[in-house]
């Protein structure tokens, strides 16, 4: 923000100066660019306010607790905070691994051998946007409470169900990120080059495709992690000690702590995103581009 302020001021003064100095003879194109610049800055500032105002309000509210910073102190003292966060983090990591192992070979194979199936696969991956999480939760509980696989009856079984459900929830983010990553490399030629050098499909996937999708996978992975950490419905109905139900429970019983927890989790998500950007920059070359955009 501090860097943005003077730049806006300078740009505005220059623009006005230029318009005043050049008067009616100023080229229309140049004036258009300057006005366009002002408009873009206004839009940027409005967006910034829209984004930061709720955060600032939450921060302000969380700091009203007495003694000062008490909400944060209470949060860090609460073992369930770290316990639930750790649980969600582990479940998130397992989800990412399973999702990656499922999505990357699928997206690769569809792009390489079955391009006609791409719209269908894309549609299937968008299903979590159409089917509410509560439907998924009840479906899982009904299907796996009895019968040959009564997973919902045990804690480990419920963890498995939770991961399976989160893998489905991660589909839109993971598939799109990976598919966008695949679009940036010549999958067919790279595969054929690998084959002509004697490599099998698995080796090509591992040595050539995965490394070139590293940042795309990371983008999808961190979005998945962010979703899993904040997810409430599935974890609640499957009665798992995840961060979402913890936050919800906290909101019902305490006043300032939920605001503090929200900000802390928000900060953690930001750190994760910063990590992607860092990896993207340090990756170097064509493989190093951040593909966060691919996961929108």
């Amino acid at each position, binding site marked *: 923000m501090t860097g943005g302020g003077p730049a806006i001021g300078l740009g505005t003064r220059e623009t006005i100066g230029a318009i005043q100095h050049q008067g009616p003879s100023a080229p229309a194109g140049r004036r258009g660019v300057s006005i366009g610049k002002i408009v873009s800055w206004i839009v940027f500032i409005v967006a910034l306010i829209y984004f930061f105002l709720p955060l600032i309000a939450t921060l302000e509210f969380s700091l009203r607790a007495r003694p000062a910073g008490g909400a944060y102190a209470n949060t860090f003292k609460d073992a369930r905070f770290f316990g639930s966060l750790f649980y969600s983090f582990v479940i998130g990591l397992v989800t990412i691994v399973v999702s990656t192992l499922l999505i990357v070979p699928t997206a690769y194979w569809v792009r390489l051998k079955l391009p006609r199936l791409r719209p269908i696969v894309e549609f299937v991956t968008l299903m979590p946007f159409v089917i509410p999480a509560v439907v998924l939760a009840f479906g899982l509980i009904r299907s796996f409470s009895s019968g040959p696989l009564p997973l919902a009856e045990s804690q480990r079984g419920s963890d498995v169900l939770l991961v399976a459900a989160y893998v489905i929830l991660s589909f839109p983010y993971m598939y799109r990120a990976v598919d966008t990553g695949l679009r940036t*490399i*010549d999958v067919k*030629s*790279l595969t*054929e*080059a*690998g*084959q*002509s*050098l*004697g*490599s*099998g499909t698995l*080796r090509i996937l591992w*040595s*050539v495709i995965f*490394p*070139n999708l*590293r940042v795309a996978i990371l983008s999808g992975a961190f979005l998945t992690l962010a979703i899993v950490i904040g997810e409430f419905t599935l974890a609640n109905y499957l009665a798992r000690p995840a961060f979402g139900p913890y936050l919800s429970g906290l909101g019902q019983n305490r006043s300032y702590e939920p605001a503090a927890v929200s900000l802390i989790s928000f900060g953690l998500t930001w750190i994760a995103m910063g990590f992607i950007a860092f990896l993207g920059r340090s990756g*170097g*070359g*064509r*493989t190093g581009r951040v593909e966060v955009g691919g996961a929108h």
Partner: protein
Amino acid sequence: MSFLVLQGIQKQFGASVAVQDFNLSAEKGEFVSFLGPSGCGKTTTLRMIAGFEQPTAGTITVDGKDITYRPPNRRNVGMVFQSYALFPNMSVADNIGFGLRIRKRSKSQIKTRVGELLEMINLPDKGSRYPYQLSGGQQQRVALARALAIEPEVLLLDEPLSALDAKIRVALRKEIRSIQRQLGITTVYVTHDQEEAMSLSDRVVVMSEGRIEQIGPPPQIYNFPATPFVASFVGTLNLLPATVVDAAGGTVSVGGQTIRTPKAIDGQANRAITVALRPEAVEIGEAGGSNRLVGQVEDVSFLGSIVRTRVKIMEGASVSLDQFNDPALAAPAIGETITISFPPEASLVLAGPASSSDAVEQAIAES
């Protein structure tokens, strides 16, 4: 016995036939080019040798072994792609050594071999670079080294120079040929650039619409095209509509002007045929040979070392001719009526509207 043999190869994609009746025998160490326009089936044929496509019919053998249905990673065939297809996540040295790592060679063996190949492609100090840090020409040299690292039995190159600019293209094709000669590796090269095919190859396979039009050494392809397609595709060719005047004597009429062909022509008088003339065989004036045609200068183009003049002989028939550029050269003026001349041997009877291509081939074989 031939080293690489393609016998009765056919490839269909659904109802459309991409390659048909393709037969080729290449000797060990031979450099064969597939030449033809886009969609003629040359790349499909190459991909069948590589194993990326399977023929609908026919067999492919290398050194007596049938590899028709062998998967590409078990063929020991090196491939260089138009798009280089270097692995972006690997350094140049890792790219070159990839095939050797697959073959589980020791680290020291890989290092030595990669070093040799980097020397061979004149990039000895670029091993630690990544592909995106190299120019297009350098990337393609690395791709060539990578394909050669595994000591393939056959080297396949799919329009490897198409993405490069003209000067690098010429330099690199010389390099490819020199490396190929040095290693004595049987090579199949796909291109749509006739100059590339002519300058590189021991033999050229000219293809059109999935069929082989002609196979032969470059001079034979250029000087004695077997079909009208080859004649028109390879080099610049003047095609003149003519009618037979005296079949036994080999004389024909072009717009009422009579010229002689080297041999007797099949068929009767008044039969419509086509006479082909290379631009370099025709001269302005009467010194070029006993055949003479009079026409009006339509256009004069300066092409650097060559000045090309187009002379209209009759409605719908023009002859282009080349003269070496010389500061003292007096090019004819547009609209001027001039005489051009050429020897009977330069006129090739190709086709008549009523004749089949078989008959044309027969006619050429006899001429």
